[in-house]
């Protein structure tokens, strides 16, 4: 009997999982991917657009082109999921029944949750680079910025790619130096966290880098209001940060249809999910990949990639009536652009914070240290994304399980050799 697998979202996670499942199951399953548009954006490229280091047209490709033959693609917006009757309803009225549902609909930006963010000054003095329109508008605005206070602000966690705002600061510093106006600009990073990053060892390194580059750091700032006219961020505990140009990362939520589907999501419309098996806590026939999952890991493409291996194995087992055996350890791997043709690399999981050392083993890319090699790695990531990550291929030597050899665990006790 043909099994029906419906995948909601044809982004990083949905596309790679559809391709993996098709390879594994062939004609034994009917696989349908639903997405509301046919423009797949390479999101890491959004960071580069404002600085003219990437052009918008070059980072967008049709979604269908990324899917293997035999995977059905349906362009339409999901209206709701009925988890009891096992079907998905699209806005155009189509109903899709499923035996297994994979939720891969990512996260959405909700600037409207912050007072004033969409008000006067939006796309003029207040910008974001987290979507294509925003990044494009900022690419036009940055060249006219000749001095003053440039503020980069994360409104609240969780956000996708939590290092991207820091990378933006480092690239802005480089860009302004290149233009010869760095001394006319005060550059400040404003975060709700109590440090530059979430984990102690990486926080120390990243805070050091900010200081070295003369970027000020304001912590525990929970933005309640953005006033584009007056040029001011106001926190809920009534502190203010004045700006001439603000680059804001808005609040993130899960998708609206999750909230409209009874029993599917949590308060923020993310889907409660077992962090190890990636099976939802909602129903055994619903699995979740990528940013849509409420699990304690980074919302990053690399995570979706590593999750893919585990999720597909578990979906196949579930269809065969076997116990789920694959376990995700929270493996995350991020390049952090630091400007001047250099980057850092961080690699971590649920239990191990980002540490110095080498990746993937003692011979490899330097971890938590700036290097040109890492920058080349980041540049190569784009072709790797289209050619290996989306097709759902594994990379030789790099698996879903975080490698331990090469990592300097002594750094945890402060006795690092580095």
């Amino acid at each position, binding site marked *: 009997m043909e099994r029906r697998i419906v995948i909601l979202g044809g982004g990083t996670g949905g596309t790679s999982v559809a391709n993996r499942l098709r390879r594994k199951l062939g004609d034994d399953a009917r696989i349908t991917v639903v997405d509301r548009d046919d423009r797949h954006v390479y999101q890491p490229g959004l960071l580069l657009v404002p600085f003219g280091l990437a052009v918008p047209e070059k980072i967008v490709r049709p979604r269908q082109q990324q899917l293997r033959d035999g995977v059905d693609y349906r362009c339409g917006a999901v209206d709701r999921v009925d988890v009891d009757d096992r079907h998905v309803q699209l806005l155009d009225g189509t109903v899709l029944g499923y035996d297994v549902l994979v939720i891969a609909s990512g996260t959405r930006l909700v600037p409207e*949750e912050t007072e004033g963010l969409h008000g006067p000054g939006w796309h003029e003095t207040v910008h974001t680079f987290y979507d294509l329109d925003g990044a494009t508008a900022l690419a036009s605005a940055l060249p006219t910025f000749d001095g003053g206070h440039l503020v980069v602000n994360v409104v*609240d966690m969780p956000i996708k790619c939590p290092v991207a705002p820091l990378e933006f600061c480092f690239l802005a510093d480089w860009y302004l130096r290149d233009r010869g106006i760095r001394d006319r600009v005060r550059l400040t990073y404003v975060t709700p966290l109590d440090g530059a990053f979430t984990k102690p060892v990486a926080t120390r390194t990243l805070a050091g880098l900010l200081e070295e580059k003369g970027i000020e750091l304001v912590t525990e700032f929970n933005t309640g209001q953005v006033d584009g006219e007056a040029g001011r961020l106001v926190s809920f505990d009534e502190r203010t940060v004045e700006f001439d140009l603000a680059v804001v990362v808005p609040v993130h939520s899960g998708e609206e249809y999750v909230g409209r589907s009874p029993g599917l999501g*949590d308060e923020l419309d993310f889907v409660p999910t077992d962090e190890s098996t990636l099976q939802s806590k909602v129903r055994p026939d619903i699995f979740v990949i990528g940013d849509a999952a409420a699990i304690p890991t980074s919302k990053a493409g690399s995570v979706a990639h590593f999750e893919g291996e585990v999720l597909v194995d578990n979906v196949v087992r579930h269809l065969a009536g076997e116990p789920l055996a694959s376990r995700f350890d929270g493996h995350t791997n991020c390049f952090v652009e630091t400007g001047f043709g250099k980057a850092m690399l961080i690699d971590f999981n649920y239990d191990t914070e980002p540490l110095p050392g080498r990746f993937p083993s003692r011979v490899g890319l330097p971890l938590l240290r700036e290097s040109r090699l890492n920058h080349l790695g980041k540049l190569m990531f784009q072709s790797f994304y289209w050619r290996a990550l989306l097709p759902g291929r594994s990379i030789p030597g790099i698996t879903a399980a975080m490698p331990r050899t090469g990592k300097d665990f002594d750094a945890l006790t402060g006795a690092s050799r580095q």
Partner: protein
Amino acid sequence: MPEKVYAGTAVTVNDEGFFTEPGQWREEMTSELAREYGIERLTEQHWQVVKHMRYQYEQNGTGPNVRALARSSGVTIKELYQLFPKGPAKLAARIAGIPKPRGCI
């Protein structure tokens, strides 16, 4: 791990003042905990939030962040900041005797 005494009972907390063993927490400890963090008198609304925080922890294994706390408790973010100035989620978690809400990485 530092030890502290609330309502006459010794409990263990971490360096940031979060309970390491939520099972040691008792309702009688809340007013002392609140005073330690600068809240002189616990109102009905404080209580509602603290209890809610505790409940969420028991359900999900972690307390919610401030936005999720506002959504699920029905108290707006602004009000939460008035009740627990400077970081409602963290403050309410300390008073509710649960670990620091797991920030997303």
